[in-house]
């Protein structure tokens, strides 16, 4: 799956989508800017879900994973928040129920800000069951290993 300079090797059986989200600040101006958002899930991704997975995380089972890659404006790439360089790899210890955008019983999340190819991203991962983080995290890293980001 490839779009907007992002290439993802989607594992068999997973759902994935790369769509563009219009920058809220630029929508009102003449030159609206849009940024790509990537969603990957081990379950059927429902239409109409939110950028950070609202509408999707609610239907996840304990076996499921959701990976979100959210791009910010290119000007953010040099800021302190996005100082980390390269696509991260996740660790089971990074996950916690309080890292969710909206806490859901049993689930946990992790969030990473980084820059790659002069572009600024947030990687957000949700595990269907925090108790199973040691089994699920290697699957996330396998997907991240198949992710490439071009300068565009």
């Amino acid at each position, binding site marked *: *799956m490839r779009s907007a300079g992002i290439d993802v090797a*989607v594992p068999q*059986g997973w*759902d994935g989508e790369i*769509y563009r989200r219009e920058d809220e600040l630029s929508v009102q101006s003449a030159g609206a800017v849009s940024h790509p958002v990537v969603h990957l899930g081990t*379950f*059927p991704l*429902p239409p109409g879900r939110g950028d950070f997975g609202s509408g999707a995380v609610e239907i996840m*089972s304990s076996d499921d994973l959701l990976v979100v890659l959210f791009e910010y404006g290119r000007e953010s790439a040099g800021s302190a928040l996005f100082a980390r360089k390269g696509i991260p790899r996740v660790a089971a210890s990074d996950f916690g129920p309080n890292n969710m955008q909206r806490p859901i019983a049993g689930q946990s999340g992790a969030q990473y800000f980084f820059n790659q190819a002069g572009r600024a991203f947030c990687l957000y991962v949700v595990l269907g069951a925090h108790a199973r983080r040691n089994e699920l995290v290697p699957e996330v890293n396998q997907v991240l290993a198949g992710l490439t980001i071009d300068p565009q």
Partner: protein
Amino acid sequence: MIVNAVLVIEGVAIILLAILVVGLLRSNADVLRALHELGATEPGGTGSGRRHQHAAPEREGSAPDVAGSTLTGSAVHVGVTGAQHPTLLAFLSTGCSACVGLWDGLKTGVGRIGSDDTRIVVVTKGPEAESDSKLRELAPDGVSLVQSTEAWFDYEVPVSPYFVLVDGPSGSVLGEGSAGSWGQVSSLMTQALADAGTVKRDRLDNGEFRADAELRRAGILPGDPSLYQEERPE
């Protein structure tokens, strides 16, 4: 002189007959080849062609995932093999008159197809082959829709509308065929699931027929005389 003329005429006639026979044989071979490709069964044969109704095709490997684009231009990938649920791929088109009722049905709800957790995914050909405005008009909210000409090739879709039901965990095609209404789709897939279940019930995990295994456990092996007892005289 006359004898020579007769011999020449006979020779020409034999050559013409030979050409005619060769032509007929070739024509017959072409007809048989065409019938074989259509899946027709030769008399006394087993018929190895691809079937277009109810039964799963003899496709190599597991059913491929569907990758393409959405109506908004997003890149999209739908997991089929390896998913925890069955997937019904509905190959529809904006240009086919038989699809109109099916598009309408998607908006009002199609009911139960296969099992309760069956996921319905509409697959149209890519943007180069479909009317974008018509598709926006027909596409239902809340149903996954993928534009993918590649998927039509992958699943060897012969006509539209066409439906393929895939078992997620195994990736096997449970049934496929064409239908003009969602009621027919439901019937088609229910029959396909029943057929698949029957086959499963008749065979054990090792592929052996259940009846053979039970006879073997009773000490009755192939060739056992008890299998060929003659009728008792009255």
